[in-house]
């Protein structure tokens, strides 16, 4: 029973990391339709920002979170202004463009910060384990879980309770008509892209004390993020959460019962089967196309 409970918590933890990484992508992909293959590199830039702030300014991870969000969001904003905005009407070209941005970001980091793995210190207060319902769990993982829940709350609020969010949803439904009503879609898209990038940066910073930091780290995250978003349904925030939770629990349990190699294969298989019968994802919002 205790093992079972431990596995539930583990699954939630894996799911929360998946959600954290996927949330930025869900926002960008779901609203602007840009297939952002550089998402993994935005995650990587967040991790490197954490490393740089810690190494050169002596800032701890928690203190630097706001700065990291701003740095990566600014980066995303510039990318949107310079490249992405010219491609909104050519969604397929965004694949190539963002892929290129990703490659350049990787190499830029390799040239400036070096190719070796980097070390980001875990906040010392969260470095130990805590007992949750009688199960020993990493305090930092619990922190990630709560932080992700909070981030999701903020994002949901922005989307459904603010005027920017309402405009964004209007543009998502029909850009032309929204523009006729006086909504500045360019500006809204810039903000959305920057926000999504900032979320990716936060994800990178938060996973860096548990995992490793290298220029190539983004490639695995971008795959995970797309799995979550595609399974959840492209423009459904709730779907993203549910799908992250399902994938987290599924991965956790399969890995516990067999091993991680099998788990990875079975999870992918499950997604393929689900997509076969529900191509729009589990929670597709009805939109006019």
């Amino acid at each position: 029973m205790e093992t079972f409970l431990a596995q539930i918590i583990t699954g939630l933890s894996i799911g929360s990391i998946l959600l954290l990484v996927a949330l930025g992508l869900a926002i960008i992909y779901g609203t602007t339709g840009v297939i952002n293959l550089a998402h993994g590199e935005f995650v990587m830039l967040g991790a490197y920002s954490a490393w740089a702030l810690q190494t050169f300014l002596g800032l701890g991870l928690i203190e630097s979170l706001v700065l990291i969000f701003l740095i990566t969001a600014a980066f995303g904003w510039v990318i949107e202004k310079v490249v992405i905005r010219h491609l909104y009407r050519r969604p397929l070209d965004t694949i190539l463009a963002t892929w290129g941005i990703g490659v350049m970001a990787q190499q830029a980091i390799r040239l400036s910060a070096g190719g070796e793995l980097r070390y980001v210190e875990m906040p010392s207060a969260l470095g130990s384990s805590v007992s949750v319902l009688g199960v020993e769990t990493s305090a930092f993982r619990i922190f990630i879980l709560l932080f992700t829940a909070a981030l999701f709350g903020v994002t949901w609020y922005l989307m459904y309770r603010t005027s920017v969010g309402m405009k964004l949803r209007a543009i998502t439904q029909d850009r032309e008509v929204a523009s006729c009503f006086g909504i500045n879609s360019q500006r809204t898209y810039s903000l959305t892209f920057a926000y999504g990038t900032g979320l990716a940066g936060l994800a990178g910073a938060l996973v860096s004390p548990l995992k490793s930091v290298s220029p190539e780290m983004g490639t695995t995250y971008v795959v995970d993020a797309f799995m979550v978003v595609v399974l959840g349904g492209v423009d459904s925030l709730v779907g993203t959460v549910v799908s992250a939770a399902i994938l987290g629990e599924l991965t956790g349990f399969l890995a516990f019962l067999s091993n991680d190699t099998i788990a990875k294969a079975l999870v992918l298989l499950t997604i393929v089967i689900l997509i076969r019968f529900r191509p729009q994802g589990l929670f597709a919002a009805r939109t006019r196309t």
Partner: protein
Amino acid sequence: MNRLGRRRFLKGTVATAGVAAAGFPHIWIKDSSFAYAASGKVKVGVLFSLTGTTAIVEESLHKATIMAIEEINDAGGINGMQIEAVVEDPASDPATFAEKARKLVLGDKCVSVFGSYTSASRKAVLPVFEKRKNLYFYPTLYEGRECSKNVVYTGAVPNQQQDDFVPWLVEKFGKRWYLIGSNYIYPKEENNYCKKLLASLGAEVVNEEYVPLGHSEFSSVINKFRSEKPDVIFSTVVGDSVVALHRQYRAAGLDPDTMPMASLTTSENEVAAMGPDAAAGHFTSAPYFMVWDSPENQNFVEAYRKRWGGDKVTHFVSEPSYFQMYLFKQAVEKLAPGDINPANIREAIKGEEMVAPQGRVRIEPENLHTYLWPKIGQCQSDGQFQILKQTSEWLEPLPYKAYPNQVCKESGLKET
């Protein structure tokens, strides 16, 4: 090209070949007659990934190799000939490794090539060196079970890393072992050998599992550690996964005093990336540690940091990358300039000895692997290892020890 043109072209080629044959009388007899040192330089290839996933480690191997070449050249070269390094970046991709190896051997006419970290990349270049009868120097510890006349192996094979390590751990910690590795050939062969040792010691394997390469989510694995409660976790997880495993082990509050991880793959390089707090208390077996106290190692570490930066670490793959260049030098030194070719270098390097940073090493004449000095280290909170034990004498490389009916001889693999 029309028919006439092609015929003319063919004629021309034959004529050129004829001239070449006249100039170098042995050209048709053997590939080896090409005058490798004709320019007064010894040309070698350096084939480590500077980009891609394994560049993280291979960059340090590249640096150690380049430093050895520079040192040798500064000290007057090999019998007065400078070593000329042709550097290629195979970008962590086995197919690119093979392509670049072909270029170095055929295009640049390198007399030997130094390279590779992963077994996959070594296997990819092997046909090039065997077909062209060139020589490859491979510095990485690996899974053994290879018997090539065209590779000099200066890293450890399973018997050299495990023969002392496994019995020592069984005695100190206990008989319930959990084997975890990355999912490819190296961990499987190491575990195969480990299981044989454990069986002979009456120890038991409670679980054996493999995670995908590059895997970074170990929470389910850690739950299994908790429920199985093994005495020793034997880890052959590689690359950035090592970092994730150690950090998550530590964050989960597990204790290295009662459930230590014993690794064949965790070096100073990985420790620097995971942070000393996550590494402290765990064990590694390797022929070389950065703290090893010898004048040769002191020189090596000092020179390395002076050349590449004061925060850089040396480790058990960068050290062989360094000393194998000196073994190469010693072998070439024995040859007259006209005799310098891969086949002669191979003959000359057999039984060659030198004092490396880890101790005196020797190339085993039959299988071209290396006699090494395995050590057991425990990681400390400063990120360096404390060496707890060293083998009493250098250990013979036995790449087929897990397969008692096979042995690697000078003439090739023998079934007995």
